[in-house]
């Protein structure tokens, strides 16, 4: 019997029971953010840093995030390592913690992260005392380098941000799961609970979901469905189910000769 308590997600020495990370962008109503956190049981949410809109006076998102939830501050908007580092320091100054999701994008067509700048930012931010969770295109050499400079996780994209195409980088993510020793959190592109379950069945340590929940007609129900799928996928992975067998191709016998010998 697999005990839920013993299967914690451990990032930078901190234990979490939920393997669901929730992004807070694109929500129609900020109050839905709070409800989704409740319905999903997520313990880590991402937020971004933006210039205060002095004209509109919007309510701050932090009001809708319970104090016991870990804030993961996204450096979105940064186009290079220098900007990402600057955003991280601004975030730290707010007193809301030092957990940073490094997101460096200078490609406005696909929103693909810049792996090289991300490594540079990771190296600097680890030195500056941040807990670093970098978002990258899945690449084993990049992941190794990120671990080497001290990243606490690697977050490979499943598919393009907002595309909801699911896991399109499956083989590359599997390699990271198999070879990299820090938690692998699949981030971006997960559009359906079945896709989240797929990532967890592969052995991913957690998934980060934003668009699919925020833009659903009923975000609270959507968040709950993802949470259930993530739990199911994780349990399936732990249960050690047999892999799908590759179809056998008929071929002439190869070992008959061993039985012909006198």
């Amino acid at each position, binding site marked *: 019997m697999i005990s839920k308590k013993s299967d914690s997600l451990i990032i930078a020495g901190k234990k979490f029971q939920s393997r669901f990370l929730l*992004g*807070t*962008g*694109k*929500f129609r109503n*900020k109050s839905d*953010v709070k409800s989704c956190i409740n319905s999903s049981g997520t313990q880590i949410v*991402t*937020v*971004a*840093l*933006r*210039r*205060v809109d*002095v004209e509109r*006076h*919007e*309510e*701050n*998102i*932090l009001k809708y995030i319970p104090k016991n939830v870990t804030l993961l*501050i*996204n450096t*979105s908007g940064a186009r290079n390592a220098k900007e990402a580092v600057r955003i991280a*320091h*601004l*975030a730290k*100054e*707010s007193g*809301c913690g030092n957990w940073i999701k490094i*997101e460096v994008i200078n490609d406005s067509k696909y929103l693909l992260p810049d792996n090289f700048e991300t490594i540079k930012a990771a190296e600097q931010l680890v030195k500056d005392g941040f807990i670093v969770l970098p978002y990258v295109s899945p690449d084993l050499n990049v992941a190794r380098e990120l671990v080497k400079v001290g990243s606490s996780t690697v977050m490979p994209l499943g598919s393009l*941000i907002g595309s909801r195409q699911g896991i399109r980088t499956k083989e590359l993510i599997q390699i990271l799961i198999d070879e990299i020793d820090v938690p692998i959190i699949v981030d*971006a592109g997960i559009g359906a609970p079945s896709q989240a379950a797929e990532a967890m069945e592969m052995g991913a340590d957690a998934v*980060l979901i*934003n*668009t699919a929940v*925020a833009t659903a007609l009923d975000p609270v129900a959507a968040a709950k469905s993802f949470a259930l799928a993530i739990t199911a996928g994780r349990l399936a992975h732990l249960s050690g189910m047999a892999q799908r067998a590759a179809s056998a191709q008929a071929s002439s016998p190869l070992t008959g000769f061993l039985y012909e010998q006198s």
Partner: protein
Amino acid sequence: MKITINGKKTALKSPQTLAAIVRQTCKEPQYVVAEVNGKIVKSNGWAKTVIRENDAIELVSFVGGG
């Protein structure tokens, strides 16, 4: 006196403290992080920081994000 706040040119009648400017522009100053001329100014230093001609202020706070 001309200064820039969040990239926009603004005119001030006289030098003011950063604390005063934040209070005037932000509804919830407790969630705001301020930079003056590229350097972060801690909130406990806002009252002592006087804003002068051509200073560039950045005021940021958290929003929903992925």
